[in-house]
């Protein structure tokens, strides 16, 4: 039975699931409930962070154009351009044992592609969630539904995995940003030319 989290809640991931090795982070959303006629493209991205809370190297920013990071311990399985259908819209695979020791946190984000030009924001997105499941067997371990907390934002830090001693924990962050992916990159110490 998956643990359902509210914003700000933290739970043990590996401690309560001993032997857990490969996890999949699934992110989902529904868009265009009133069909404004514009394409609505949401992107999941991952920031792999050191102790300072910043990205050390641009290779540790995993997104549709750079689908692997943390020495291939983190793999983005690809872009979904419409958000159509049930289930996860995008997925990221994480091999916990292979994450380099200098990685402290892995932040999972969702941004709206070209939000400003398309006049879109998270007010038009419904049923956004993140879930964590065991790649082996597919058992869902953690789920966080984002609910109605977002409106004018164009980027959300949905959740993060972080080290706690020898274990990994999960934090349902749910913090919104204006300014899309660019604002997130700046927040995590990447300059986008």
């Amino acid at each position, binding site marked *: 039975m998956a643990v359902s989290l509210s914003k700000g809640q933290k739970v043990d991931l590996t401690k309560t699931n001993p032997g857990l090795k490969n996890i999949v982070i699934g992110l989902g959303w529904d868009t265009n409930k*009133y*069909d404004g006629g514009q394409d609505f493209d949401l992107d999941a991205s991952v920031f792999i962070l050191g102790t300072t809370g910043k990205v050390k190297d641009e290779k540790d920013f995993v997104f549709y154009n750079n689908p692997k990071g943390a020495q291939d311990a983190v793999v983005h399985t690809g872009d979904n351009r419409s958000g159509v259908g049930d289930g996860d819209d995008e997925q990221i695979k994480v091999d916990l044992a292979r994450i380099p020791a200098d990685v402290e946190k892995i932040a999972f984000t969702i941004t709206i592609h070209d939000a400003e030009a398309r*006049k879109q*924001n*998270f*007010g*038009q997105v419904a049923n956004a969630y993140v879930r964590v499941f065991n790649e082996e067997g597919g058992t869902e371990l953690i789920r966080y539904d984002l609910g109605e907390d977002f*409106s*004018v934002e164009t980027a959300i830090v949905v959740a993060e995995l972080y080290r706690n001693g020898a274990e990994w924990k999960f934090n349902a962050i749910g913090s919104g940003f204006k300014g899309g992916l660019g604002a997130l990159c700046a927040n995590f110490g990447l300059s986008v030319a």
Partner: protein
Amino acid sequence: MAISLQKGQKIDLTKGNAGLSELVVGLGWDPVEQAGGGFLSGLFGGKKAEFDCDASVLLLDANGKITNKDNIIFFRNLKSPCGSVVHLGDNRTGGGDGDDEQILIQLNKVPSDIHKIVFVVNIYDCQNRKQDFGMISNAFIRVVNKADMKEITRYNLTENYAGKTALIVGEVYRHQGEWKFGALGESTQDVSLSTLVGKYS
């Protein structure tokens, strides 16, 4: 003091406001004076077509669908079958200050299978008259508590809607046992209410 919303924002209506039972939803717009007008165009351009915007209300179920065509409230069907939603009538010019069209909603009489009450505006006969929402300014929607006529919230539509002929302005919707209002501000190129409605059928 009414709360002013931006596109995408949502606000609680009934939560923390338990006495709220009847709403007046007002919609307004002004036709923009077309450039190149004036005395001569009045002489040679012929009579300008009137600009007739119509506000309509769609009552949707939990899946966002219209299950009964009588749940489309517009100038030819001013009252929902349940009686909870009443359109106060058509305004054919958009002239004057204040609300151009108004809708009354009795929240506690809305049937439980209705989850969303969506407010749309389209331009009557827009194809023949070659009109679109780029020719409209100061469009807004506001929600008023009928008991004291105080404005609860307001959303001014500030985008340029040139080329668009239908606006999905806002929605009053159920959320966890309460009613909320969302500022939608979506636009489409549907040329009539029936094509717009087709998307929810």
